[in-house]
């Protein structure tokens, strides 16, 4: 291939182009707001005010961001191996089962921190299994992982409905949910964290799993860039042929990567189930698994990008609620559009503006761009 994408300086590659993509996505979203007959600038102001204007706003923003960090990391780990795990939604959903089983069994018996550790193990294990099956089917039977993970989302949804209207529902209750966990299976809130910065907080759902999410971001970074396994995963993602030639066991890496990815997605359940609602409900994931795709694409699959991207989406979720108070036509579904536009422009159309940016760079300083033959392998 004759250099379709000449080399750009790293800051342009990892900073400027994603930023342009993001701005275009938000401009198009602004058009939708205009179409509905509201002012996009006013909406943006309300959004910021809702998300960061008060201590509670910040708490909710970070609460939503917690879920998105987990699911974003899950998608990113799979991306590094060249796998598209679209099943984060289902893995998080069954992950809730792991949390609930631990909490329902041990609440009233163990201190909260032991319950927390057991719940982490529970949701990670179930999430991992739910993702490993598609991984195994891809590695050993050649079935397409995208299709299988989509199917597993639906199977997970049916399974959870079956359990929640049946075995998990306390006798005599009509609502499809488990009983409320006892207080020693609740995660501590992190209101003090926001108060530390001088905001007053009444009550927010922000809880300890936020810290866990940040820890997992560091762990994922270390895993991908500082371990042998991470090296093997990246090699597989970059070139399966090279990986095979280097003696890396393809099937093993795929299954392990998917297990890690599923475990991360499963941990997302800790945040709403153990941190906020204190019971397992229908549809508690509410699309967070899919937001993870947008977050991972926006963060370029790097934890240092995923955490801010997750906070941005947390801001959209929280600020979106604020907008809908003032502008009744704009409900939270606006975020679904923005999410789609971000996926479109930062994902599928990520190279659209590259030629223009390159032309601009070339006209400024041809030598710095190294136009000749420095083809980067990412064109295909």
């Amino acid at each position: 291939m004759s250099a379709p994408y000449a080399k750009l300086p790293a800051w342009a590659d990892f900073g400027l182009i994603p930023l342009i993509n993001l701005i275009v996505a938000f401009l198009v979203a602004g058009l939708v707001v205009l179409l509905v007959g509201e002012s996009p600038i006013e909406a943006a102001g309300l959004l910021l005010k809702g998300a960061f204007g008060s201590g509670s706003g910040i708490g909710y923003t970070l609460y939503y961001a917690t879920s998105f960090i987990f699911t974003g990391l899950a998608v990113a780990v799979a991306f590094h191996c060249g796998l598209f795990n679209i099943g984060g939604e289902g893995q998080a959903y069954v992950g809730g089962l792991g949390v609930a089983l631990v909490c329902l069994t041990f609440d009233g018996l163990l201190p909260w921190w032991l319950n927390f550790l057991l719940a982490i193990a529970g949701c990670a294990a179930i999430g991992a299994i739910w993702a490993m099956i598609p991984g195994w089917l891809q590695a050993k039977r050649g079935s397409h992982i995208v299709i299988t993970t989509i199917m597993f989302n639906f199977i997970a949804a049916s399974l959870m409905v079956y359990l929640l209207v049946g075995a998990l529902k306390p006798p005599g209750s009509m609502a499809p949910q488990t009983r409320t966990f006892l207080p020693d299976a609740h995660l501590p809130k992190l209101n003090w964290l926001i108060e530390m910065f001088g905001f007053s907080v009444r009550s927010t759902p922000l809880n300890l799993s936020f810290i866990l999410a940040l820890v997992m971001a560091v762990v994922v970074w270390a895993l991908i860039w500082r371990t042998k396994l991470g090296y093997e995963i990246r090699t597989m993602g970059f070139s399966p042929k090279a990986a095979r030639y280097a003696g890396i066991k393809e099937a093993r890496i795929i299954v392990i990567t998917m297990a890690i990815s599923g475990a991360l997605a499963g941990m997302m359940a800790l945040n709403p189930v153990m941190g906020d609602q204190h019971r397992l409900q229908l549809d508690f994931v509410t699309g967070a698994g899919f937001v993870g795709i947008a977050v991972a694409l926006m963060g370029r699959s790097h934890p240092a990008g995923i955490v801010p991207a997750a906070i941005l989406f947390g801001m959209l979720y929280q600020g979106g609620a604020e907008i809908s108070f003032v502008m009744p036509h704009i409900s939270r579904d606006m975020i679904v559009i923005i999410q789609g536009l971000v996926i479109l422009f930062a994902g599928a159309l990520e190279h659209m503006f590259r030629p223009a940016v390159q032309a601009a760079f070339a006209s400024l300083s041809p030598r710095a761009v190294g136009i000749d033959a420095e083809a980067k392998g990412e064109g295909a």
Partner: protein
Amino acid sequence: MDVVNLVLQLFDATIRVSVPLLLAALAGLYSERSGVFDIGLEGKMLAGAFAGASTAAVTGSAWLGMLAAVAISVFFALVHGFASITHRGNQIVSGVAINFIAAGSTVILGQAWFSQGGRTPSLVADARFNAITLPFADTLREVPLVGPIYSELVSGHSLIAYVAFLMVPFTWWVLFRTRFGLRLRAVGENPAAVDTAGISVAWLRYRAVICTGVLTGLAGTYLAVSQNAGFVKDMTAGKGFIALAALIFAKWRPVPAMFACLLFGFLDAFAIRFQGIALPMIGKVPVQLMQALPYILTVILLAGFIGKAIPPKAGGVAYVKER
């Protein structure tokens, strides 16, 4: 006689729920056979349903509704084409994006235009595609066996339902008996060969995704302007993915796709009809299991335990000319 009636009703319901699946599966067939994976069937169908219902509600014409549905579906199909053919973006990512944009914008625009919580106004009978009574359906009703089958099962569906089933032989003919179809299949298997023959890969794939857009638009019209009297938030409810499953189940062939859609439709109709009733021999089947069965069957098939589903070779890969 009661049993016969029950079976007839069940099959009739099967046909009704299969129509949108069938149209969406055939839509996916054109795109995927040309080498463009499309998991955005769901979104295009939803957008089509919304455009169709709102246009029919405003103009009072089902036909204008259908036109709008097809137009908006084709637009989304072209966005998918623009991303995945022209800009060689990831086709899965693009499909996911379209699903979200459709899911969000239908609700936002619906709320802004009609203020009914994301619904469109209920359509009057004239603004819908209504059931058609085929000739002699009433006179033949009394004939044993053939009569009820003809008058209950074959007659009494909307125009789009008949179009959907006619699309099956038509798609087969286009795909396997025309030059366009030969090239379409070739471009999904070996685009370089098509390119060498001097045919534009991109233009061929664009035409394929346009076909996809037209058919998903029809599927959306059926949902919102024929089967139901208006658009409801998230009314496709995963049908686009069941259609995708049916397409894989059928190994990307039109006639088996019809049978796969009928099978999945039957499971759905069966689950609704026999909800919570204990069956002889089997006992009470949880309705959730019936709902999950299409997905489970597809996973098993994809894993190669019942036959092997091999997708078009160049599927999911953008074509780069100079290689």
